């Protein structure tokens, strides 16, 4: 039976789905840049630390406002220091988790919104080569959401003492990754 099944893969035309700029391209895109990826995980992680309603408000807000950043990029509206901004998002969001910071939801939302612009702008400024825009967008949003969910899943350990240490350690690691990318950005002259 196992020998029979692989043949079915040839029955599917890849148009609009796989490597030609469709769903899979969008799905893969957010995980190809470590600085972007850790910041998105940090959003979910911080949401889990903050608890309801931040645990679901932040993962909704981030992709929505990231779209605003993409639109700004498409319209060529300049946003200063994109790469340092993305790196700073990992530092700040990871630092918030590491420091066990619990600001009011409005402040957490504002921080997320600010950094989401930085994450969305490059995608609008340098439009990817996609075949079907809505499939690419769906893959991109789902991947972003799944990174948030991964952060939330890990963040749920926060309710146990050892888990709290692990979550804060992960936050510190994310901040360290952000610091590395910030140094890289500064080294390359922004």
């Amino acid at each position, binding site marked *: 039976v196992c020998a029979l*099944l692989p043949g079915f893969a040839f*029955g599917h035309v890849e148009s609009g789905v796989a490597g030609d700029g469709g769903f899979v391209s969008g799905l893969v895109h957010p995980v190809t840049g470590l600085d972007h990826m850790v910041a998105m995980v940090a959003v979910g992680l911080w949401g889990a630390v903050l608890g309801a309603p931040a645990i679901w408000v932040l993962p*909704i807000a981030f*992709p929505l406002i990231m779209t605003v950043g*993409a639109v700004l990029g*498409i319209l060529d509206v300049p946003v200063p220091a994109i790469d340092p901004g993305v790196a700073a998002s990992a530092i700040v969001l990871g630092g918030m988790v590491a420091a066990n910071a619990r600001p009011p939801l409005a402040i957490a939302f504002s921080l997320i919104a600010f950094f989401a612009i930085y994450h969305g702008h490059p995608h609008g400024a340098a*439009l990817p080569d996609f075949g079907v825009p*809505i499939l690419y*967008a*769906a893959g991109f949003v789902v991947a972003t959401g799944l990174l948030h969910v991964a952060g939330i899943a890990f963040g749920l350990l926060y309710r146990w003492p050892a888990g709290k240490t692990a979550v804060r350690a992960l936050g510190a690691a994310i901040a360290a990754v952000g610091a590395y990318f910030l140094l890289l950005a500064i080294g390359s002259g922004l």
Partner: protein
Amino acid sequence: LNPASRAALLMVVGAVAFSPTATAHGGADWMHGTLDGAVLFFTSLQSLLPVLVVALLARRNGSDRVAIRTVVLGIALIIGLLALPVAGDPVTVGLYARSYLIALALLVLFNLRAHAGLVLVLGLVTGALTGLEFKAVLIGDPATGFSPAVGFIASAICFHLPVALIASRHPHGWQRIAIRVVAGWIAAIAAMDIAFTIGRPG
């Protein structure tokens, strides 16, 4: 696995393994057309997402009129596919449809209760816009006639009815949140689609 589960699993694997033999049989064009239309609905996010969101509106509007809303959606799809003239090229219609989808998704995201009459109108507009967007694809091939449109509408109805019924059954807290998260992501997908479509060179 108990014997019944093993038997069911074997049947499924067997059916999957030998299903390509179905291609040995030529079918009538109308039959292929109907199946193509039915599959197209589920494989196109441009059709699946608006119907999903309009079904999720039932979450705040109860199950009383779900059947009526489904019928209205079906009629609106017929109107969009057959009655309305194409207003501009499909890309422009798609941009309007996606803008409307954002508004619908935000309605679900912010958990707003709409008047029952308004929900009917929203279903009508959703069906008409979706029908308009797929008019060029589904109507016009003399070999298949209207059969792709029949399959497409049947899929929309078969999808809308159960989703709306499930959403209207006052789900648990986490399910309500999941509905709002999905709506938020759909709004983001629609907004990003508009941005990419406008920004794409050519």
